[in-house]
C-alpha cells in the first residue's frame, strides 16, 4: 500500500459535525446496481432500475452509523443533463463516496472513478458483479487496482449481498486516491477562488453551473483533462484486466441481431405481440375475468353491500358513499383489486425483465430515426415506455433528455397520447368485450395522434434537439430475484398512489351525485356528450371522473352498456383527455404553470374534437 503518495492521510474516523451521521454517497454508472446496494444496506427497498436515468429521485436511508444516499447513474460528474447535475451536487456534499464499478465494464466505469479521485474525495470502490465478469472471462486484479487507484477496492456481488460487510468495514479506510498530478498546480490556484478542490476541478473542466456559483468563467481545459484521464483509464485497465474469452459470444450475436433493422424490427414486433398476448389476452382477459367478475363482483361486492345494508338502508348518504354506484367499498375496491392490480403487476414485471436484460437501449437505437422526426432522439423511448407504466414516472424521467426542447415535447406527448398502465388495464378489460379489432383501432388511432402531435411540436418548438449518443451495455439474462424485487416495489408504490386517488375520487363523485350536481353537469353537457360524441348523457360523469385520473374516467364507462363504436370513441376521448392529478402536479413542478395551461387546453379541446370526428367517421362506416 502506498499511503505516502496519498493526498490526504487515511482517515481513521469520519467527520462528525455536531452529531451528524457521516454520509456515504453511492455513485456509479447507470446499470451497475447502485440501488441494489442501497436496498441491501438500508433494508428499505427503493426504486431500482437497470436503465440509465430511472433512479431519478435522490433516496436516503440509514445503515449503522451512516446516512446512505443514492444518486442517479452517471458516466461522469458534470452538468451535461439534469441528472448529472443532481448527482454532482450530492457527490460534492459526500463525506465518503462509495463508487460502484461494474467489473464487466471497467473501461467505461473507471473514467468516473478517476474523475472522483481527481476531485479529491475520500472514497471506496466496490467492484461489483465479479461473478458475472468471471463467467464472461473477465478477470480484474483487485490488489493491483487498489494500488493504482490508491483507494480501497472491495469485490462484491450486491444482488446476493456478497462483499457488503467488507465494504462497510473498509469505509473507515476511505481516502482520496492518486489524482492526476499534472493538474495539481492549476487546481490549487483555482481552489483559492472556489474554496474547494473539487469545485476547482469542475470549473477547470468547464462546468458552467459550478463556475457561475463562484462568479467565474468556466475554463476550457476539459478536452485536455478528459483525454489525459482516458489515457490513465486505458493504462490502468491494460494492467489489471485479463480477458480469457475473445470469441464472439452468444450475447454479442444476439445484440447484433437486435440492432440490425432486418432482424431487429421483426424481433421487436414479436416482442410486442408477446406483450399483447400476456397482458392483453391472458391478464386482461382471463385473470381479470376471474378477479373482477368472479371474485370482486361475484363474492366481494354482495358481501360488503350486505354488511353496509345491516346499518344503512339503500339510498342513504352513507350507503351511497360506501356501497353505491361509485362506492368506495364496492366500485373502487373492484377496480383496484380486480382490474388494475393484475395488469399493473403484469406490466411492471415485463418492464423489469426488459430493463434487466439490457434490451431497452437497443430499442432506443432502433427507434432513433422515427423519433428524430418528432424532435426527439432514441433516448426518449425510455421515458415514453415508462410513461406507459405511469405517466408521472415517465415525466420525471424526461430529465435524462439532453435539452429543454426534448423535455417539452416528450412531456406533452406523454400527457396527451400515452395511456398509463392503469388506464390500459381498464381499457383492455373493456375492449376484451368487443374484440381485437377495436383494440387494434384504439392503439392505431393513438399512435397516429402521437406521431401527429410529435411532428407538429417539432415544427413549432424553438431550439435544437440533441442527437443520440447512447451506451449499449452487454446483454444479460435477467436475474429473477432482481426482477421480482424491482417490479414489486414499483407495483406497491403505484397501487398506493392509485388507491388514494381512486378513494378520494369515488367519494367526490358520490358527493356530486348526492347533491344533484352530477345531474346538472350531465344535462348541461348533453350537446357535447350526446350530440357531438354520440354517447349516453352519463358519459359526462366519466369525464368528471377523468379529471381525477384518466383510468378512473375510463372505469366510469364500465357500466354504461356502450356499443362497440361508442366504446372506441369513449376510450380515445378519455385517453386524450387531461392527465391525472398526480402527473399534473409533476408537470407543474418540472415545466411550470404556463406549460400546464397550454397542455390542458390542448388536451381537452383535442380530445373532444378528435372524439367527435371519430364518432362521425364510425357512423359513416
Amino acid at each position, binding site marked *: 500500500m502506498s499511503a505516502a503518495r496519498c493526498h490526504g492521510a487515511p482517515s481513521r474516523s469520519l467527520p462528525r459535525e455536531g452529531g451528524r451521521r457521516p454520509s456515504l454517497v453511492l455513485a456509479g454508472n447507470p446499470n451497475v446496481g447502485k440501488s441494489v446496494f442501497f436496498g441491501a444496506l438500508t433494508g428499505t427497498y427503493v426504486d431500482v432500475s437497470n436503465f440509465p436515468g430511472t433512479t431519478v429521485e435522490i433516496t436516503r436511508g440509514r445503515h449503522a452509523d451512516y446516512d446512505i444516499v443514492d444518486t442517479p447513474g452517471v458516466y461522469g460528474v458534470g452538468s451535461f443533463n439534469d441528472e448529472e447535475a443532481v448527482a454532482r451536487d450530492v457527490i460534492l456534499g459526500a463525506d465518503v463516496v462509495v463508487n460502484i464499478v461494474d467489473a464487466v465494464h471497467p473501461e467505461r466505469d473507471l473514467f468516473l472513478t478517476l474523475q472522483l479521485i481527481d476531485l479529491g474525495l475520500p472514497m471506496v470502490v466496490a467492484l461489483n458483479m465479479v461473478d458475472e465478469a468471471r463467467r464472461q472471462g473477465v478477470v480484474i486484479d483487485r490488489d493491483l487496482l487498489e494500488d493504482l487507484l490508491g483507494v480501497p477496492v472491495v469485490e462484491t456481488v450486491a444482488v446476493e449481498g456478497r462483499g457488503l460487510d467488507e465494504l462497510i468495514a473498509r469505509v473507515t479506510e476511505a481516502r482520496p486516491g492518486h489524482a492526476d498530478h499534472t493538474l495539481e498546480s492549476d487546481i490549487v490556484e483555482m481552489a483559492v477562488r472556489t474554496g474547494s478542490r473539487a469545485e476547482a476541478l469542475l470549473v477547470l473542466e468547464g462546468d458552467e453551473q459550478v463556475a457561475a456559483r463562484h462568479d467565474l468563467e468556466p475554463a476550457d481545459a476539459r*478536452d485536455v483533462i478528459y483525454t489525459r484521464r482516458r489515457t490513465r483509464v486505458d493504462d490502468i485497465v491494460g494492467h489489471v484486466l485479463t*480477458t480469457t474469452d475473445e470469441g464472439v459470444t452468444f450475447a454479442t450475436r444476439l445484440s447484433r441481431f437486435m440492432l440490425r433493422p432486418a432482424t431487429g424490427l421483426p424481433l421487436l414486433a414479436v416482442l410486442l405481440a408477446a406483450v399483447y398476448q400476456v397482458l392483453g389476452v391472458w391478464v386482461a382477459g382471463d385473470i381479470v375475468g376471474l378477479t373482477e367478475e368472479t371474485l370482486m363482483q361475484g363474492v366481494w361486492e354482495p358481501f360488503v353491500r350486505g354488511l353496509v345494508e345491516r346499518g344503512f338502508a339503500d339510498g342513504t348518504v352513507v350507503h351511497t358513499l360506501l356501497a353505491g354506484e361509485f362506492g368506495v367499498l364496492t366500485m373502487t375496491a373492484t377496480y383496484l383489486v380486480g382490474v388494475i392490480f393484475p395488469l399493473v403487476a403484469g406490466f411492471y414485471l415485463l418492464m423489469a425483465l426488459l430493463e434487466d436484460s439490457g434490451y431497452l437501449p437497443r430499442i432506443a437505437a432502433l427507434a*432513433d430515426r422515427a423519433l428524430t422526426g418528432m424532435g426527439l432522439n432514441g433516448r426518449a423511448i425510455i421515458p415514453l415506455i415508462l410513461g406507459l407504466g405511469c405517466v408521472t414516472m415517465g415525466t420525471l424521467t424526461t430529465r435524462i433528455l439532453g435539452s429543454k426542447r426534448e423535455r417539452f415535447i416528450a412531456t406533452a406527448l406523454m400527457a396527451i397520447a400515452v395511456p398509463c398502465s392503469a388506464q390500459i388495464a381498464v381499457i383492455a378489460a373493456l375492449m376484451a368485450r368487443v374484440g381485437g379489432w377495436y383494440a387494434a383501432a384504439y392503439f392505431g388511432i393513438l399512435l397516429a395522434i402521437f406521431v401527429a402531435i410529435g411532428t407538429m411540436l417539432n415544427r413549432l418548438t424553438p431550439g435544437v434537439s440533441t*442527437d*443520440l449518443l447512447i451506451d449499449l451495455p452487454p446483454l444479460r439474462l435477467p436475474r429473477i430475484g432482481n426482477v421480482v424485487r424491482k417490479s414489486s416495489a414499483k407495483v406497491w408504490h403505484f397501487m398506493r398512489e392509485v388507491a388514494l386517488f381512486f378513494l378520494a375520487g369515488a367519494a367526490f363523485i358520490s358527493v356530486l351525485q348526492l347533491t344533484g350536481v352530477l345531474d346538472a353537469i350531465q344535462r348541461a353537457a348533453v350537446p357535447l356528450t350526446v350530440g357531438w360524441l354520440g354517447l349516453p348523457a352519463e358519459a359526462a360523469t366519466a369525464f368528471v371522473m377523468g379529471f381525477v385520473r384518466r383510468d378512473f374516467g375510463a372505469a366510469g364507462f364500465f357500466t354504461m352498456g356502450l356499443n362497440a363504436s361508442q366504446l372506441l370513441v369513449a376510450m380515445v376521448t378519455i385517453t386524450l383527455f387531461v392527465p391525472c392529478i398526480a402527473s399534473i402536479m409533476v408537470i407543474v413542478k418540472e415545466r411550470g404553470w404556463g406549460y400546464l395551461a397550454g397542455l390542458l387546453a390542448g388536451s381537452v379541446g383535442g380530445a373532444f374534437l378528435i372524439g367527435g370526428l371519430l364518432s362521425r367517421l364510425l357512423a359513416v362506416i
Partner: protein
Amino acid sequence: MRGHNGHGRAFGRRRGEDPGTLAVLRAGDEAVIAGIHDDSARAQAVRFGMGVGASVHCVTTLPGGPVVLRSGRQEIAVGRGLARRIRIETADERR
C-alpha cells in the same frame, strides 16, 4: 478522401453523406476518430473511450438511423445527425 476497408469496398459511397465523417461507415469498417464538432458529445465520447484518436469498429448501421460503434469491449450508438459532425480518418490514411 476515400479509403478502403478490409473487404475492399470504398468508403464514401453513401449518397449525400460527407465522405470524411462517421456517417459513411458501414458494418465491418474500421476508422479513427479525428474530430467531434459538438461539445457535449465530445466529452461523452471520451467517457466511453471513443474520443479523438480512438480506433473504432463499425458494428452495424441502421438505415437513416444510428451508427453502432465498438471500441475495445464498449459499444455505443451514435445518431445520424451527430455522426455527420464526427470526422474520421480511415486506417489507410494513417499509414
